């Protein structure tokens, strides 16, 4: 198999990730974090702090307690949207974009049903950036924006978005599901901002890991309530970070794996990872651009790109192309709709879908060349039929 579905999840992980997850269970040393004074509970609590430190280091955040851990990117965005009640409330206005994943859109739609006013922006046709300033109203409270499109790979210029947010006193909430680990991010630059991430993609952690990074002070409410290991006689779940977003027993072995993933990236450096992913992407595009009737979505945007490339071959259904690639060449891509419905509407691919190729730092140039050849053959075969 040649695996080009890394924007869905990375399946080739650094060996240390698997070793740490295994150790988390097999060594029989990690108890329930913070529940009890014995060494096993203490060691588990200590491991969670290590995860927060590893995440904080990657994003240049000083205080690891500003990192709350959760299941994935969708959970992170839900906790943020539902936990910031002052912002996502009836009568408030929030700006988002048509390039968002459903992990952002659906929680916002839920808030909209409760009276939140929502503006959804389309990108500038040349730069793929969003004119936020034009959409600001008197009651605008926040901008919720993807850092990197999960489909076409366009990268949002966060510095520009943040400068507008700063000017108007808005909270910037970033969906970093695709960008975390794949490009350098100094989140300390973005005061009054929140970064939501998943652990199982570019951070090379296990599935079922993710988190929220706060840069600033926010009025937080718990979305879930339950065991916290503290303040037991309080009827309410704590509202202090990170406890406010962490309910019940945490997935310590998986977060140990995430720590290893973050450490792997820190060693490689995000800058070098970005360079390699850009190289693979460029090689792939160079190899496929001459295919008859190929459409590379977003190719003309003058912006940075992550590792995702979305294509179609003529009017061939994307699912048919994806299946052909898998069945004839063992190439794993993602076809169909990509949990980003407004992006498909923007590009007019609601019915056809798109075939997405997405790379990881473990992909090789040889695999890229095999993918290129396979796509040439696939196009030839499917355009004929």
């Amino acid at each position, binding site marked *: 198999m040649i695996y080009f579905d890394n924007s869905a999840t990375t399946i080739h992980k650094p060996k240390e990730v698997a070793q740490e997850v295994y150790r988390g269970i097999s060594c029989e040393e990690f108890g329930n974090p*913070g529940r009890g*004074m014995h060494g096993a509970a*203490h060691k588990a609590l*200590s491991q*969670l*702090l290590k995860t927060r430190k590893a995440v904080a280091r990657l994003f240049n955040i000083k*205080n690891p307690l500003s990192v709350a851990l959760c299941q994935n990117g969708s959970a992170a965005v839900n906790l943020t949207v539902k936990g910031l009640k002052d912002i996502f409330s009836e009568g408030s206005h929030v700006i988002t974009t048509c390039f968002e994943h459903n992990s952002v859109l659906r929680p916002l739609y839920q808030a909209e049903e409760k009276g939140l006013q929502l503006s959804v922006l389309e990108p500038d046709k040349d730069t793929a950036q969003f004119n936020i300033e034009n959409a600001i109203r008197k009651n605008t409270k926040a901008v919720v924006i993807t850092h990197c499109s999960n489909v076409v790979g366009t990268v949002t210029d966060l510095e520009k978005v943040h400068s507008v947010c700063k000017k108007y006193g808005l909270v910037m909430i970033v969906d970093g599901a695709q960008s975390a680990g794949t490009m350098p991010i100094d989140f300390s630059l973005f005061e009054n901002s929140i970064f939501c991430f998943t652990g199982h993609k570019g951070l090379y952690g296990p599935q079922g890991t993710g988190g929220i990074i706060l840069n600033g002070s926010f009025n937080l409410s718990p979305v879930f309530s339950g065991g*916290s290991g*503290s303040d037991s006689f309080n009827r309410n779940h704590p509202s202090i970070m990170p*406890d406010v977003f962490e309910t019940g027993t945490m997935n310590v072995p998986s977060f140990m794996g995430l720590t290893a993933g973050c450490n792997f990236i820190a060693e490689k450096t995000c800058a070098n990872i970005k360079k390699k992913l850009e190289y693979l992407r460029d090689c792939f595009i160079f190899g496929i651009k001459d295919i008859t009737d190929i459409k590379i979505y977003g190719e003309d945007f003058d912006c940075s790109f992550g590792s995702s490339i979305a294509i179609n071959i003529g009017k061939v259904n994307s699912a048919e192309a994806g299946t052909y690639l898998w069945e004839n060449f063992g190439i794993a891509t993602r076809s169909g709709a990509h949990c980003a419905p407004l992006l498909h509407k923007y590009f007019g691919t609601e019915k056809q879908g798109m075939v997405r190729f997405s790379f990881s730092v473990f992909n090789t140039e040889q695999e890229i060349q095999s993918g290129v050849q396979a796509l040439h053959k696939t196009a030839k075969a499917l355009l004929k039929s």
Partner: protein
Amino acid sequence: MQNEEFIVISFSSSHHAMAAEAAACEIDDLNGIRLIPIMPEISAGCGFVLKIKPEQKEVVIKLLTENGIEFSKIFLVRKENGIKTFSQII
């Protein structure tokens, strides 16, 4: 019975308590500082308190503040003839 005087710092979150212990462990002068079970006489959030020497108080408070670690209360504990008395300092 040996008499003893020390300070305990309580936290409303076990994560903050753990971060406090870890931060203290990174400083040579504070080596040996550790979390201990909370005493029933102290009403506080999490099950741990950080036990320190009285002379370490200022350094530790500075350390917690610099690291964004939130504590609840600080008590001076006097243990005389097996009886503990608690005076809240902060």
